[in-house]
């Protein structure tokens, strides 16, 4: 059985990749071998024989980890990320590494050095980003589940644009060991799937304390599937009215407001909430994320691994040329911005200020959760936009993350859930955000919605 489903996934990945560009590596031989091994060994793990796709910024031994960058184009890490190690232990079979924006920096996948991922619903449109390959692979039915990473919405936003579920857990829920660092205080590994139960199962496998990542918290991992009871009695859902205003596409607004009505009908109490500092989130995010990125990406210098520029007889010239030739424009832009905000004389004005406003945003969330168990927003302000539409305007691209970055700044969990199609048949998603460690609550709410409003539509480019 497991060999059959793995074979199906690999064949679908190979067949659809020409159209979608969702995979940067497909490991037919390795995956089939492993599937056979699992079948023969009678592995009874929670994910025995389940084919899975992994974003190319997570380390899988024996496979590449390019991070969508030329600078790591031929890099093969010698170890597994902890989340990958746990998946393998549970019997999962990694079939391939998925395309992403270079070093997870982007909201459209157009920043990949290996070309954009195409949206299975309309191949002239973006998949979202940065985990666009994982989102598209799940949406097109190539794999039932995939891993991504979410620094400012990079799991939830592509999930929304491709019509699948995507969860970003609480900061410290999952190990970041073996996830190539972008912004360490914001990065978190997340899960894509088409059914809430699959999200719950995979999250349960990968979550928990890891001695290789000191920011993982010693908080017990509950049985997430046990929370999918459908019982929403007494639940309170926050509605931040001010976030449903300017800049929000009309169809998205109506669609997410209809979700609020569904929850009301399910007996959930809808409570108005305020997030007074939400409007500052993008500004705070692009200071903190770029500052951390400029330090994290200093390690790519052509010495220990990856690409090195040729004909550079002097060391510093070698560093500079390697980085100039190895990084793409968006990565350079962010390294520049991060270096600027951290440079002498500007640290207090930008970085410290941003960290102070981050405290205010976090406090907004803590206050909101005094009156509700979770709150709802759109995941993205519009459905998938056209490839090329925003590439020349970085700020317009950044504003696409307006609903998602706050969760990373505050460290709280969030999930994007599909809730229908626009008039031109593009998926729309809503987002639920909850207090720290409330993944069970989010999954319960998402599951209850799924029971009454299952998203059964399939994209035109699909393995089904």
């Amino acid at each position: 059985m497991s060999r059959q489903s793995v074979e199906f996934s690999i064949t679908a990945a190979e067949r659809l990749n020409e159209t979608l560009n969702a995979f940067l590596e497909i490991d037919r031989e390795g995956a089939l071998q492993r599937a056979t091994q699992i079948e023969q060994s009678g592995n009874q793990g929670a994910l025995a024989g389940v084919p899975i796709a992994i974003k190319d910024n997570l380390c899988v031994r024996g496979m590449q980890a390019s991070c969508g960058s030329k600078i790591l184009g031929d890099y093969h890490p010698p170890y597994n990320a902890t989340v990958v190690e746990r998946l393998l232990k549970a019997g999962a079979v990694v079939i391939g590494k998925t395309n992403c924006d270079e070093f997870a920096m982007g909201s459209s996948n157009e920043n990949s050095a290996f070309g954009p991922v195409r949206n299975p619903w309309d191949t002239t449109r973006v998949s979202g980003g940065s985990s666009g390959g994982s989102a598209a692979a799940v949406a097109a039915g190539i794999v039932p589940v995939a891993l991504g990473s979410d620094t400012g919405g990079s799991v939830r936003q592509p999930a929304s644009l491709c019509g699948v579920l995507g969860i970003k857990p609480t900061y410290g829920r999952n190990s970041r060991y073996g996830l190539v660092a972008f912004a360490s205080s914001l990065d978190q590994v997340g899960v894509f799937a088409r059914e809430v139960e699959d999200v719950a199962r995979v999250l349960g496998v990968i979550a928990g304390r890891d001695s290789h990542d000191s920011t993982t918290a010693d908080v017990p991992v509950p049985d997430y599937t046990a929370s999918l009871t459908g019982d929403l009695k007494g639940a309170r859902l926050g509605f931040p009215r001010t976030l449903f205003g300017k800049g929000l596409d009309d169809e998205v607004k109506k669609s997410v407001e209809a979700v609020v009505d569904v929850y009301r009908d399910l007996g959930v109490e809808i409570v108005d909430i305020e997030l007074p500092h939400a409007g500052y989130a993008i500004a705070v995010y692009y200071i903190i994320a770029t500052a951390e990125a400029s330090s994290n990406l200093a390690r790519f210098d052509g010495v220990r691994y990856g690409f090195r520029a040729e004909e550079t007889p002097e060391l510093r010239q070698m560093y500079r040329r390697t980085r100039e030739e190895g990084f793409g424009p968006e990565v350079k832009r962010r390294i520049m911005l991060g270096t600027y905000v951290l440079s002498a004389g500007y640290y207090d004005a930008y970085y410290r200020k941003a960290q102070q406003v981050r405290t205010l945003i976090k406090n907004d969330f803590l206050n909101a959760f005094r009156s509700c168990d979770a709150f709802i927003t759109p995941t993205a302000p519009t459905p998938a936009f056209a490839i090329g539409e925003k590439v020349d305007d970085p700020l317009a691209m950044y504003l696409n993350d307006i609903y998602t970055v706050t969760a990373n700044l505050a460290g709280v969990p969030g999930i994007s859930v599909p809730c229908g199609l626009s008039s031109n048949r593009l998926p729309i998603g809503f987002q639920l955000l909850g207090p720290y460690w409330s993944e069970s609550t989010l999954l319960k709410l998402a599951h209850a919605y799924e029971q009454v409003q299952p998203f059964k539509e399939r994209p035109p480019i699909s393995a089904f």
Partner: protein
Amino acid sequence: MPIKQLDIEKVAQLAHLELADEELKTFGPQIAEIVNYVEQLNALDTSSVEPAIGGLTAEGEKTDSSRADEIEGSLGQKVALEEAPDPASGHFRVPKVL
């Protein structure tokens, strides 16, 4: 505050990036626009607000991240050098420093 062309070059130097003239020309105004945008934070009085540096959750801060000082397995020299662009006699070789 407007970022001068000079600043962009200085930042590129600090970031160890040898940017092409074309890149300096496009990045200059783009970064200036982003800096201009983030300066909206100055509208907020944060004089009495603690910066959110460090852990985000009480549970994360409580977690004991120390471990016993014991030797564990590691990659070893051979494997650690396998991905190096220019390994030589068990070392990472680099162009001359001076």
